Structures are given as C-alpha cells and as structure tokens.
C-alpha cells in the first residue's frame, strides 16, 4: 500500500478567483512532485484547469519548479505573475 502525504495548497490573488478558494488540503501518494499536485488540483477543482500549464510555485516560501518533490506538511503556493513595485 503506497504511503500517502498531505499538504496545504494556497491559491494567491487572481488564482484564488479562478479556482474559487484560496486554499485546499491535498492528499496524494508519496513520492510526489509539484506537477503531481497540480494534476490532483485540476481533477478536483474545475477552476484549476484554467491555471497556466506552468504556474509560478513556491514550497514553504521558496520558489520551486514543477519537478520539485513535495513532502508531508508542505505549503505549496501557486503564484500569478507578480506585479509589485
């Protein structure tokens, strides 16, 4: 039986509007990558299908790429193109 891992997902700014929520808890088989989490999100939230193929992502406040592994308890944030300044 595959081990499971649970992580928290944050949808920021416009992505919260697209998905219809600003956070979600996702459980999936370990090991898993950011891309795997995105797959789960797209199948769970219809609005998540409107996210770009390769959104900016951060795990625990540091930017990561889609191939990065996720771990139990991580906070994965999906970030629209930034527009500060």
């Amino acid at each position, binding site marked *: 039986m595959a081990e499971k891992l649970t992580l928290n997902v944050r949808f920021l700014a416009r992505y919260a509007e697209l998905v219809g929520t600003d956070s979600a808890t996702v459980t999936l088989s370990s090991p898993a990558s950011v891309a795997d989490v995105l797959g789960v999100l797209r199948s769970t939230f219809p609005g998540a299908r409107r996210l770009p193929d390769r959104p900016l992502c951060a795990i625990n406040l540091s930017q990561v790429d889609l191939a990065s592994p996720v771990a139990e308890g991580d906070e994965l944030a999906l970030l629209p193109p*930034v*527009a500060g300044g």
Partner: protein
Amino acid sequence: MKSAYLTEREIDLELLIERVESADRGAVVTFLGTVRNHHAGREVERLEYSAYGPMAELECERIRIEAEKQWGAAVALEHRIGALGIGDVSVAIAAAAPHRDEAFTACRYVIEELKRRVPIWKREHYVDGTVAWVDPTTAVKIED
C-alpha cells in the same frame, strides 16, 4: 510575525532614510514608486495591492541582504499593501553607501529584484468602472 517590509500604513521615507544613514556613508539614494493615473493606456482611479505575506517578507529580506553584501550598502525598503489612491507611495527604498555609485546601484537592484521576485499583486480600478489584475507578463507595456 513582525511585518518589516509590508505595511498597510502610509510609508514614511524619512524613517527609511534614518535607518540607513551613518557618518561613513556619504550617499543616500532613494526610490519611490507612486500610483499613476494611467496604465497601459487606461485611466486608473485607485488600486489594491495584496501579497503572499510571509513569502513577500522573506523575499524582501533576501533582496536587502543581497544588495547590502554586493555593494557594501545599507538598505531599507517598504511596500504598501491594501487600497491606494493616485499619487500614493506604493514602494520606498533607501540605499546608503560611502560613495554614490554603490548607493545608486544598490537602490536600482532592489527595485528591479522586488518587481521580479516579491509575491505582490496589483488590482486596478479604472475610471470606467472596470477592475483588472495587472499581469506584467501579458500587458502590452508595463514598465512602471
């Protein structure tokens, strides 16, 4: 968590300058970004900045340290979050160094990296009543 870089209150440039100036730093360069009344050809009435707070704080801290190390400067910065009107200061940076070259370069570095890396978003309300998230990657011309 002490919110050192993001603030919902008016930014006080003098306070930022006080934090970086010292007797051996002869040059202080500051940058102020203010809300313009137009953007990409549309008339702006007001806007809202929001942030992924903890990460924005961390990125600002990283950028400050990078700039201080690279140019021997002292750097302070603040970004306003929440509702802003035309002319309001959205971001302020102060960089002090013994000589002006380093102060200019450090200040410029901080605003460029902030715009590139810090997770802050801008929602503009236009005079015609519409509202839009600003996306620098798709806008025809975003250079402010």
